[in-house]
């Protein structure tokens, strides 16, 4: 077994922490899609092709409300605009070794959670192993998201019908995952970055939708980091 393959397997193993968060939310997404009269197969296609959690929920609700196709695509892309900043930040963590894989393979699965987990754990990987490790993280997360969607679309209603508490608890999975990731990286992040980003997000929520507030928080944190 060569080093790249071993690094890829380590990445798959490390993706378990993301999968723990993804599967319940993906099940919720599958359920939401079914409730919006989208077929199970089409729900899976959404997760396969769009693969961007929150915006998928919005896509489904806009489809259900009969919105115009162009506005649906526009809102989905606006929500995902924050992903624009992830790639350069991620590339800066790969180190100076020559690129091993096509860039599209590195970009395709770059979600919020994959980005956060990779940023927090990549430094522990040797530079030459970082790309295959990251591909493993991506693939594990992607498989859990698509698999969770399929489970939710085909079986979710039976599981959750009799347990509203379990259904509500699914809503806390992603916040819990983000908090756990923050705890993981707290020692390498300046406190002022977190304070500025958190306060800017909170302030922005009074004036704009959530995706705008997220971008405002990211910009404030980046400014605080640059001025350090």
């Amino acid at each position: 077994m060569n080093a790249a393959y071993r690094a890829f397997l380590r990445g798959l193993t490390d993706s378990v922490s993301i999968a723990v968060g993804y599967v319940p939310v993906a099940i919720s997404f599958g359920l939401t899609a079914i409730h919006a009269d989208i077929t199970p197969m089409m729900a899976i296609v959404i997760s396969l092709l769009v693969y961007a959690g929150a915006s998928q929920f919005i896509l489904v609700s806009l489809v259900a409300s009969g919105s115009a196709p162009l506005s649906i695509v526009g809102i989905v892309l606006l929500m995902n605009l924050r992903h624009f900043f992830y790639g350069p930040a991620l590339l800066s963590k790969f180190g100076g070794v020559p690129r091993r894989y096509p860039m599209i393979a590195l970009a395709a699965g770059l979600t919020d959670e994959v980005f956060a987990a990779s940023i927090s754990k990549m430094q522990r990987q040797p530079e030459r192993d970082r790309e295959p490790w990251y591909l493993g993280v991506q693939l594990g997360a992607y498989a859990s998201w698509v698999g969770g969607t399929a489970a939710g679309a085909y079986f979710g209603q039976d599981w959750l019908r009799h347990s509203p508490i379990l259904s509500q608890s699914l809503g806390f999975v992603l916040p819990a995952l983000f908090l756990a990731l923050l705890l993981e990286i707290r020692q390498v992040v300046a406190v002022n970055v977190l304070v500025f980003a958190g306060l800017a997000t909170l302030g922005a929520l009074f004036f704009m939708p959530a995706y705008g507030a997220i971008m405002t928080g990211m910009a404030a944190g980046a400014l605080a980091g640059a001025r350090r």
Partner: protein
Amino acid sequence: MSATWLFVIILASGVGTLLLRLLPMLWQERGMRDAWRQGARRRALDAIGPSAMIALLVVSFWSMLEPSPAAQSAAPIVAGVLGVLLGRKLLHSIAGATLAGVATYGLVLWWFA
């Protein structure tokens, strides 16, 4: 809405999202590699990840509290946060901390129900 239109929307959203992730990486790789590595830009890039995490966390809590910012809706969140902290301390893993937080959150929801 017809299945064809739905598929067109999904495809356009998917391609657009992929381009949002891919294009900045290509631009950086082609022309700005050295510049990104230096000084303030590098520090700003390093700060984006943690900033995104805390921003997503704040937005998540906000959306959970927004309809009724009462003690009854805040208590499960506080318990969930404590569960994550405790899970992190005892289990030393991201997955363990996440599950501990969700379990605590669910328990307090059940208690109030």
